[in-house]
């Protein structure tokens, strides 16, 4: 029996069958649904002068300039000539990097204001909920978006949680305050599929609900069954379903099929080295690619396998021990994965840590350099900029300061690898979106209005 057919297929599917039969065209396809309405904020040509610039591509320019116009990085260099109407910002003593990118956030679906009413990150009702889309949970008024912005975050991926084998579809957002999630959606960013290995699915289902999976082998059996169904679905869609006609649209299988078609990127929560190796083989069995392993605490053990398969590892600097699969932390994890030639990056999974991913990377860089690994700032900056952009499939558009890319730029008060540096100005698509020294550019969510009595706070 095909997995997606409900217990009483005729009755349940009847309305859909009727609807489809009544339409001339195919159902609205996924790409068009909930389309991005993102518009960059107003911007003007802007040049930052005489700063220390880390481009994200391994280049460092001391005393350099960054020129932004029309929302794009126009030039990076020394003593740039710019048009007369350009806004000049003195970057003397300051540093410039690409905007910080976090590939693992739950802002909006597990907001920093964490009460029952806002807990929208895990659809813990079935081990496979590939049909849910994280964007449908996003609360745009999560104050965490603003505190992340103050930490230099310009792009982030909002993921479903890790309770399920297939948690659902992720969404990549530009970190601009907005009334709708569509107005935050990164134009053209591919979707992601959240998958989870290890302890969480088996604990939630086997441990708490007394249903499959209850073991890691149960987890893998669950993935395989789903991919078999997804392949059949894809074949029936592409082949027109033969005599039976196209299969009725199924949101769960549509997302999985999107992975098989290479249109949706796999973001796989997976801690242990041997589980990553299993997941890489699973991908081979079903003909898809694992884009990024998240929470990859043991990535350093299988860094060669990651390099071989072109799979990224998203890691913390030093978190460990909160569960057994996070026991084998090494401070140098990101550096070791990077040195093996794999795509290595930081991630937060936290409304607090997302505010200082530059510091998290600094900890790793320093720990690795104490071991003689000789990692420069101009290299390490890619761990919170260009490599996360690669993980999200938006590295052609953002993640580095190269002409023609989105002007997602942070001006830091000092060396961003110092605990004392703060994001002073944050530009998204060339538009000033946050300014530490100008209250006009310090947005506040609806939720925060009136929470604190300003009269009392200012006493």
């Amino acid at each position, binding site marked *: 029996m095909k997995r997606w057919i409900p217990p009483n297929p005729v009755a349940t599917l009847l309305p859909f069958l009727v609807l489809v039969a009544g339409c001339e065209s195919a159902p609205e396809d996924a790409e068009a649904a909930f389309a991005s309405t993102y518009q960059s904020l107003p911007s003007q040509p802007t040049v930052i002068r005489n700063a220390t610039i880390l481009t994200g591509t391994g280049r460092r320019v001391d005393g350099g300039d960054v020129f932004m116009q029309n929302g794009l990085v126009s030039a990076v260099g020394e003593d740039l000539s710019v048009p007369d109407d350009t806004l000049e910002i003195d970057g003397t003593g300051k540093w410039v990097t690409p905007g910080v990118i976090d590939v693992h956030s739950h802002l909006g679906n597990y907001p920093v*204001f964490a009460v029952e009413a806002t807990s929208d990150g895990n659809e813990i009702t079935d081990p496979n909920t590939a049909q849910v889309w994280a964007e449908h949970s996003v609360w745009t008024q999560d104050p965490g978006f603003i505190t992340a912005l103050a930490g230099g975050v310009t792009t982030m991926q909002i993921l479903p949680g890790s309770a399920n084998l297939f948690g659902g579809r992720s969404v990549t957002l530009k970190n601009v305050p907005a009334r709708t999630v569509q107005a935050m959606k990164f134009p053209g960013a591919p979707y992601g599929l959240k998958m989870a290995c290890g302890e969480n699915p088996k604990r939630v289902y086997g441990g708490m609900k007394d249903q499959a999976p209850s073991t890691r082998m149960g987890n893998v059996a669950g993935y395989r069954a789903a991919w078999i169904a997804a392949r059949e679905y894809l074949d029936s869609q592409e082949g027109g379903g033969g005599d039976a006609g196209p299969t009725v649209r199924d949101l769960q299988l549509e997302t999985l099929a999107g992975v098989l078609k290479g249109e949706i990127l796999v973001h796989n929560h997976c801690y242990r080295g041997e589980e990553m190796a299993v997941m890489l083989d699973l991908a081979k069995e079903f003909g898809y690619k694992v884009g990024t392993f998240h929470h990859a605490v043991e990535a350093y053990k299988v860094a060669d396998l990651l390099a071989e398969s072109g799979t990224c590892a998203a890691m913390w600097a030093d978190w460990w*021990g909160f569960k057994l699969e996070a026991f084998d*932390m*090494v401070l140098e994890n990101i550096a070791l994965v990077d040195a093996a030639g794999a795509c290595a990056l930081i991630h937060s999974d936290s409304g*607090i840590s997302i505010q200082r991913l530059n510091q998290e990377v600094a900890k790793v860089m320093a720990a690795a350099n104490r071991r003689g690994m000789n990692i420069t700032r101009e290299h390490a900056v890619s761990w919170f900029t260009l490599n996360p952009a690669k993980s999200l499939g938006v590295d052609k558009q953002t993640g580095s300061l190269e002409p023609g890319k989105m002007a997602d730029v942070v001006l830091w008060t000092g060396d961003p690898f110092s*605990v004392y540096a703060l994001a002073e100005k944050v530009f998204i698509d060339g538009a000033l979106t946050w300014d530490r020294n100008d209250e006009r550019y310090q947005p506040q969510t609806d939720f925060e209005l009136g929470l*604190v009595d300003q009269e009392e706070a200012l006493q």
Partner: protein
Amino acid sequence: MRGATISFVALFACVSVAWAETVAITGGTVHTMTNAGVIEGGTVVIQDDRITAVGRGVAIPEGARVIDATGRVVTPGLMAPHTTLGIEEISLEEKSLDYGLDDEHFGAAFSVAEAINPRSTLIREARIRGITRAIVAPTDSAGPFTEEPEGPIAGQGAVIHLGSTDDFVVRNPNGLYFVYGEGGAEVSGGARGGALLRLREALDDAIDYSENRTAWEEGNRRSFYLHRLDLEALQQLVSRKIPLVVKVQRASDIETMLQLASDYDLRLVIVGGREAWLVADKLAAAGVAAVINPLENTPASFESMASSLKNAAILHEAGVKIAFTIDTVSDPHNQPNIKQAAGNAVAHGLPWEAALRAITVNPAEIFGVDHGQLAAGQEADLVVWDGDPLEVTTYADHVFIRGREIPMVSRSTLLFERYKDLDFEYPPAYRN
């Protein structure tokens, strides 16, 4: 084979001298945290378990092992003021958790001290990153999967040093822990008033018991709600020998606890204090210290709407003694990051020295232990850092706890050595 023999000999030699030796740490920037202030190019002399001299141009005793700390920074060992070190190994594995009791029978009498495992992997990780002392605190819950924790009185905490497996409890108890606010309400029938009822009843019973113990033992006094062992445990609290340590976030909840502490003449310390900055003057006036995580700046719940990165700076400015923790719930693994928290507090307005005090001498003073100062006569807990200790790029080069230099080895360093290159002739299991 020859290599293995040599390393064994070297290890043995190191251990044999480490326990009782004379060490001079020279040339560093020494932050004494005393009136002597900062000594550039200072020397610290350690003999056995104590510091015997601190200063510039101090004579180096004959035979002393000299550690050249030129260009380095020497500080007291860091003290983590709110942890579950030694009573929590893996947070989601219940068998490794001893921080709380799911038992209505006992409250105040529950003590963590005797259950602390000084061989915990967390302790070896924390100390090579500069933590030399810690408060081990009980919580109101027995673990993440406990259905219904019983009561807001969590029990008694203790102070430990992280330097050895013997004689590691420095002070027991250091305080009686109570949970107020949303957490307290949740374990007390669903309202803050329930937590207060339980605390007042405990205090009333304890006071009555202390004044009428003989009569009670002879059966000539009213019965008490509390168990005898709880009544005994509360005596140190009501006699002001230890503070009531209250986990509390909301400004109005802090004010309630200030009033209650005043009513019962209790010493009070607050832990959490996300909205403490709103009542900084009241905390200062009452001489109540605050253990906070200065990174907590988001309105995480109804009780922390005014969370702010300014919390530390405002409390300090008002004269409140502050200490920094990394998580006010339970995050024993990441305690080394208290120095990152302190550095961020500086970035948001706290004077640098005040931030270092918040992770060294302040927690020691708050909980009444001698620690956190580099001065002759003090137990020798100190760290030689490769830079500014509050920087995220700074790590410890040498760590001394009670005069013993700690081997810079933990599971994480061993795993690094095993996997630093993946070019294996034999599987990694043979790399020991």
